[in-house]
């Protein structure tokens, strides 16, 4: 899976807009064939980082490379060696499937000799063999997404950037999509996924979490979950929102949020917090029906890391 030069390298990557530091000395490496997830609240600096890696924006300082090419001096080579696909990626709806593929073949300057072979491959992976003449607009969303992916990798890029790629598709199509990503990574493609959704994050080998321009965590989903030190309590009471209100400024309580009808409370110390929670609820006339410790979800982990790093940027 790994080779001498990692597929993506960021070394103290920094970008400043006026006196605002959008990306602040971010360093990481992505191995060849890895599925690397990039998470963070809105305004955390994810998009700015991706733009620098894609050779669309020069760093203010620091350096980086993608597929072995320097992001500051070889942005043209980078653009030829990466693919990009997002939920909003626009195939041309009024063109046929074949016409869309031909359009992207032209855009990526694919040699004429290889076009037929790549077209057949794209049709195959999209599940559209024999349907090349269908109007793209009329395809179900899952097929459109796989066609968009096929078009984004017609030129066989070594690094593929995905932005919330499976947002809104049904779970079966989503699974097919990730199986397709799996075949690409087995063949050595490196995949860089930016998303707000834990459903997508779960598919990644490693996750990088950004907040306020900084990289605040980087590990496998399992280890990130295991790293959450603060106990998470699940409370059932007669009034969830009032419980959140009553607890969120209580010393020893780090976070209180609704989860379904239950309330999830992250605390510094279970025994002490339990005592103060019980007395605060009694004070406020709230009835505690149950209290138990639960395992943090990936989303709880995300929120805990962002909180530990000073909270989400306020706009």
């Amino acid at each position, binding site marked *: 899976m790994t080779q001498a030069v990692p597929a993506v390298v960021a070394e103290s990557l920094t970008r400043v807009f006026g006196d605002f530091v959008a990306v602040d000395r971010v360093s990481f490496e992505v191995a060849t064939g890895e599925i690397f997830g990039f998470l963070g*609240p*809105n305004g955390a600096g994810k998009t700015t980082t991706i733009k620098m890696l894609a050779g669309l924006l020069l760093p203010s300082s620091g350096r980086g490379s993608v597929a072995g090419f320097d992001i500051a001096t070889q942005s043209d080579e980078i653009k030829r060696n990466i693919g990009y696909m997002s939920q909003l990626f626009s195939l041309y709806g009024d063109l046929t499937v074949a016409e869309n593929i031909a359009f992207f073949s032209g855009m990526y300057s694919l040699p004429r000799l290889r076009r037929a072979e790549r077209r057949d491959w794209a049709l195959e992976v999209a599940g559209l063999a024999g349907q090349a003449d269908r109007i793209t607009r009329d395809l179900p969303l899952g097929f459109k997404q796989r066609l968009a992916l096929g078009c984004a990798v017609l030129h066989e890029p070594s690094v593929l950037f995905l932005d919330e790629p499976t947002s809104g598709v049904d779970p079966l199509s989503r699974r097919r999509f990730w199986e397709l990503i799996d075949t690409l990574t087995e063949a050595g493609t490196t995949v860089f996924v930016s998303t707000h959704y834990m459903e997508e994050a779960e598919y990644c080998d490693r996750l990088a979490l950004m907040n306020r321009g900084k990289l605040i965590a980087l590990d496998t989903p399992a280890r990130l979950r295991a790293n959450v030190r603060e106990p998470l309590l699940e409370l059932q009471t007669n009034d*969830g929102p009032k419980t959140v209100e009553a607890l969120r400024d209580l010393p020893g309580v780090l976070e209180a*949020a609704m989860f379904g009808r239950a309330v999830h409370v992250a605390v510094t110390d279970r025994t002490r917090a339990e005592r103060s929670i019980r007395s605060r609820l009694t004070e406020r006339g709230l009835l505690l029906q149950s209290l138990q410790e639960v395992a943090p979800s990936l989303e709880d982990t995300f929120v805990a890391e962002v909180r530990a790093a000073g909270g989400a940027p306020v706009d």
Partner: protein
Amino acid sequence: MNDVSGICVRELTRRFGDTVAVDALSFDVHRGELFGIVGPDGAGKTTTLRMLAGVLRPSAGDASLAGVSVVANPEGVKQTIAYMSQRFGLYADLTVMENLDFYADLYRVPKAERAARVERLFEFSNLGPFKDRLAGKLSGGMKQKLGLSCALVHQPQILLLDEPTFGVDPISRRDLWLIVHDMVAQGVTVVVSTAYMDEAERFDRVALLYHGRLLALDTPTALSKALHGVVLVVELADARAAQRLLRDHPRVIRAVLFGDQLHVVVASAHEAPTIEAELRAANLPPHRIKAMPATMEDVFIERMSEAA
């Protein structure tokens, strides 16, 4: 139906040309319930909510909200509900406070009640410090929270929210859920649509929608229990290799990756030793295998395959 402050949907249908977007939907939402309409894009979620909000006329069937029919009295429906569409009309060149005032005027909220109402909405939305900011200058998550707050400046009996969490980061999503639950605690009936299966367990009951039809309707726990088979969660070093090995195995219904874990759906928990032996034989020894409740994704996929 006897519960007049809930929602009663009967054979609700909407066609666009030859396409049947919503196909004879029937269900009830009880008063004070937090009800989820869950399905992928194109399932008919938005069309259903637009009909319930009285802004789109059904092709056939009817629905009543707090006893008011969307066919006979769409204007009456609009007065008893709050509806937040995906493109809620915020005024970009008005401030946060001016937007709230605008909607309060529109809904004729008495001046005396406004301050307390807005204060309550600020409590959970964390928008208070930004009340003088132009709505156009807010981030995506804050815009959603302002949209929801505007929809709630009057005291609706029923709240309809179309994909309120779409594109919103997990931090802002928590604020949105808190506002929603505050309404539920006050007795408001709330219907929320989402394409995200992992949000389904937050609802009292869930309607799974696909191609305009109801695949299933129940509490998240009941839906999970009704799944045919058992989900074995397998932890091992190379989950992908294990998936390739197991996905075509005759005893395996489905084998799906969840990050570094493999979810294997089998007929019963008695299959666990077979699965473990297969993995060991292929030199992929599992660290752990345990049976787990099905996720909403498992449920949805099973119902989809049955419906096909």
